[in-house]
């Protein structure tokens, strides 16, 4: 049985990775799961310099989901390279480094700093709804998205995945823009911008006022968007948004994702990634599927 998939020339031993920001760099979840079993570890967004993130409270639970406004707190690339990338070097899994920035120069600096490292793929975060400058500005304007993609591609030594925001009128327009900019793959969806009010305290449930909604509640939106993007562009897709079971993951694969990411489910069940991998293999066994690639995009 073949579970391996290909993303922009990089072979993942299985199609399961994690959504950036839900798994750190794997150190903490490594106490629960064998990281060697993952197709790839996608690290929490890292910038050229450390970012302090937003005020607390940074999260709030919603029915079937959660909102977060962490604000991309990260230790900066210098420490990330010395510590997190070194840690991951000991594992037989692919490394997808999620890169964030406030300006084009930030992204270029970060991508250049990653050139000589063991990162296998770069995921460029142009879709975080929780930081004021940069980030989402690039993710909601097709012209800027194309520009930033081209600028990053110019300096990147690894294949580039552009992470798309669902907070747009037409996600296929953004997908076409990053494809035109030279992206090697896309990942979607990032969180949906939401708001929750704490009625007892008569204030916002998260300090940032708005937060990114994730979890099972957003899965149908994510599946729909992956389907649309798969029909709009030729690039491989990493699908995510509310995946917690193998069946969830299979939905994404069947509408055209070549790989999937488990996100919020990690908080609920630290073993979720492994259960998804085992569940996909069990499904293939049950249905006599020899190669996972037969399932990718099988629902037209």
């Amino acid at each position: 049985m073949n579970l391996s998939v290909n993303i922009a020339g990089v072979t993942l031993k299985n199609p399961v990775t994690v959504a950036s920001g839900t798994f750190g760099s794997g150190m903490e979840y490594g106490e629960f799961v064998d990281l060697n079993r993952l197709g790839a570890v996608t690290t929490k967004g890292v910038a050229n310099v450390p970012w302090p993130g937003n005020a607390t409270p940074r999260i709030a639970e919603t029915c079937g989901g959660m909102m977060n406004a962490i604000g991309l707190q990260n230790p900066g690339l210098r420490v990330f390279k010395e510590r997190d990338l070194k840690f991951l070097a000991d594992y037989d899994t692919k490394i997808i480094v999620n890169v964030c920035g406030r300006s084009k120069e930030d992204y270029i600096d970060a991508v250049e700093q990653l050139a000589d490292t063991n990162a296998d793929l770069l995921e460029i975060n142009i879709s975080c709804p929780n930081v004021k400058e940069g980030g989402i500005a690039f993710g909601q304007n097709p012209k800027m998205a194309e520009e930033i993609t081209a600028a990053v591609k110019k300096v990147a030594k690894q294949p580039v995945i552009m992470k798309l925001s669902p907070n747009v009128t037409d996600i296929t327009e953004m997908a076409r823009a990053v494809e035109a900019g030279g992206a090697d793959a896309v990942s979607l969806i990032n969180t949906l911008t939401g708001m929750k009010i704490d009625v007892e305290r008569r204030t916002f449930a998260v300090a940032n006022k708005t937060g990114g909604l994730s979890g099972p509640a957003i899965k149908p939106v994510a599946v729909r968007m992956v389907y649309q993007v798969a029909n709009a562009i030729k690039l491989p897709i990493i699908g995510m948004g509310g995946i917690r079971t193998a069946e969830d993951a299979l939905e994404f694969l069947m509408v055209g994702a070549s790989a999937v990411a488990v996100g919020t489910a990690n908080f609920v069940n630290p073993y979720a990634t492994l259960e998804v991998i085992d569940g996909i293999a069990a499904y293939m066994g049950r249905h006599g599927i020899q190669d996972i690639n037969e399932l990718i995009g099988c629902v037209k």
Partner: protein
Amino acid sequence: MSKKEQVKALITKQECMTGEIFEMRIKAESIAAEAKAGQFVSLYCKEGGRLLPRPISICGIDKEKGELRLVYRIAGEGTREFSKMQAGDEITVTGPLGNGFMTEDLKDGMHAVLLGGGIGIPPMLELAKVLPGEKTIVLGYRDADTFLAKEFEAYGKVLIASDNGAVGVKGNVVDAMKAEGVKGDLFFACGPKPMLRGIKEYAAAQGARAQLSLEERMACGIGACLACVCKTTKVDEHSQVNNTRICKEGPVFYAEDIEL
């Protein structure tokens, strides 16, 4: 660092102590074996719409029986769901989480002051049990519902404060310490932030160190999501900014290391 695990635990006791304060005992041998005073566990709801675990402090550890005693307040729908579970039910739990109190700081002959406010009282009971030597224990309540207070009497001199003055000194634990002129060489505390601020100041005035246990909304509970941070006075080694993870580096911190 203690080994963490997520297990299905059997509830062996569930009882309302007073008002919205409940006591739950769970059989979770592997977690009880590793647990120490000041650590916490994550409890999960069965209701599928409530995804995130609820961090609950550990009130008692029975290594022989492999049981944990959890005393919690109904603070929302999740904890309300827990309160309706019965002995014999199963509950998913991850733990032990965090680092607990630095009990090794208490040297021979030192006098410890243990302070708990509201739902910050339960973790102080296990600490009172394991800390050697003479101790003063100061407990702050909302009103006359002084849950757990009797049990503390076995471990030291107990002073009580209540917000409405129904029992003990009117005010919080700092008011009670001032009223009684409490002195100590080492302070341990868990409770609301204003109370912790007062204790930080009170201990500093005596030239004593204080260990403060913090609370914040959490998602993963293990240090990955960076939801539950607090401000630090120095750049934190892990985050490289003035933020530290309450669930991972804490929940107990030296007062001088954090901004309250």
